């Protein structure tokens, strides 16, 4: 991990100094212990701030899209010959590069607008699991070192194995190495356990209809509609989200529980063939809604019906903007 961080800083510094990128999106040490926050680095000397460890949770592709779309908007009123190009460098692990592939497939920006510094990934911490391990005690100090996390709390120091607190999406990750990159730092990470990625979904599928509905209702009851899941999702980049549209007003703004359910159903449905299972939505959710259990079902269906793994290859087409003449039809009603 140390050497990856060191090489990452060197590489980032070089990219900025040679002006091959205008800004680098990466992680820096957060203000709280054992937390990393996304950062934007424009000055080569600031490249020293970059960190890469198990505390880096969010999917950085979101910020790549934000930076590039804001830049594009700022250039609209500029004469074509005076328009400036902006190149964003990004520290990309498997899921972030998959999201970038999706953005490229959806023509959000061009391949040469982004420079991907590929890094291997061994997973990130699920803070809800960590807090459970610590019995809810506050983390006073901590460091992620290899496959151990050293945590200091009021009741003393503790070493926790990383694999006990890894996020669920990381444990069964299929793409923990970048799918596309301009440069690769470090050796490819060892594979995780993708054979069990649909275990959760299969367990829900085995329930009866009423049990499934009760489960869905219970999860959605937690939701306070803060829209954090939408804000962090790299695939949620609409300028106006359907929840904020007023003509037509798709979703009521009151506290009616069905509005929350409809919001979640439709946000998740928009992820058909676009969810890379980075787990960002679950990790930012303040109420602990288990969104992955539902999103993973879409992932499973997309793979079973259309043989598509979202963002795994630049040559793929988004599954809902493609078709074949012999797509499965067993859901069609025939009297």
């Amino acid at each position, binding site marked *: 991990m140390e050497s990856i961080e060191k090489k990452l800083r060197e590489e980032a510094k070089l990219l900025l100094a040679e002006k091959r990128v205008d800004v680098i999106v990466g992680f820096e040490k957060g203000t709280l212990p054992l937390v990393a926050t996304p950062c934007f680095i424009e000055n080569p000397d600031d490249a020293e701030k970059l960190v890469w460890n198990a505390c880096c949770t969010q999917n950085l592709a979101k910020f790549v899209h934000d930076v590039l779309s804001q830049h594009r908007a700022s250039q609209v009123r500029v004469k074509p010959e005076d328009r400036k190009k902006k190149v964003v460098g990004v520290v990309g692990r498997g899921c972030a590069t998959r999201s970038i592939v999706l953005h490229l497939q959806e023509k959000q920006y061009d391949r040469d607008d982004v420079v991907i510094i590929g890094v291997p990934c061994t997973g990130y911490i699920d803070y809800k699991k960590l807090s459970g391990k610590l019995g809810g005690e506050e983390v006073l100090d901590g460091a992620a070192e290899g496959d151990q996390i050293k945590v200091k709390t009021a009741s003393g120091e503790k070493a926790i194995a990383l694999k006990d607190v890894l996020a669920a999406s990381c444990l069964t990750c299929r793409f923990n190495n970048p799918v596309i990159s301009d440069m690769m730092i470090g050796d490819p990470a060892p594979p995780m356990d993708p054979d069990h990625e649909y275990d959760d979904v299969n367990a829900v599928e085995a329930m009866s209809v009423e049990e499934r*509905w009760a489960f869905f209702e219970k999860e959605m009851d937690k939701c306070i509609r803060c829209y954090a899941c939408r804000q962090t999702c790299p695939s949620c980049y609409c300028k106006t989200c359907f929840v904020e549209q007023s003509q037509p007003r798709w979703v009521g703004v009151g506290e009616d529980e069905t509005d929350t359910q409809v919001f979640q*159903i439709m946000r998740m449905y928009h992820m058909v063939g676009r969810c890379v299972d980075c787990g960002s939505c679950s990790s930012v959710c303040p109420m602990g809604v288990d969104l992955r259990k539902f999103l993973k079902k879409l992932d499973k269906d997309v793979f079973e*019906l259309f043989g598509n793994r979202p963002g795994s290859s630049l040559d793929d087409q988004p599954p809902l903007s493609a078709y074949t003449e012999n797509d499965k039809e067993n*859901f069609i009603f025939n*009297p």
Partner: protein
Amino acid sequence: MSENKASEGWEPRIVAIVCNWCTYAGADLAGISRIQYPPNVRIIRVPCTGRINPFYVVKALQEGVDGVLVSGCHPGECHYITGNLHARRKFAMLKSFLTYIGMEADRTMFTWVSASEGERFAQVIKGVTEAVRALGPATKMVKKI
């Protein structure tokens, strides 16, 4: 409204979102051929099934209909060449997802009826009405007004 539903005289209310070129014409044919079918269905005409936002289906269920039927041209016969082929993918995913979260599978139905199939249209409406009647009034995800 929900009290009425629970009472004896409850009749299923079904929204059918149909395409202009095939199923709507099929419904027309059923009408001019005087084929009898249950009056429980409210037809909404759209240009093509590919035009239907899956949100319509979810929204209809939230507004309290007991069943939703989406019907268009048979695959390969779309007026806009590929609209229904795109729709087929969308609705395969939607139906599977709604079933997964615990909606009854028969509340959302998808089928193809061509302009010459007046008889089939009547059969479809009969089939859907019976299936929804068997399920009873919708209770899940229904907004209380």
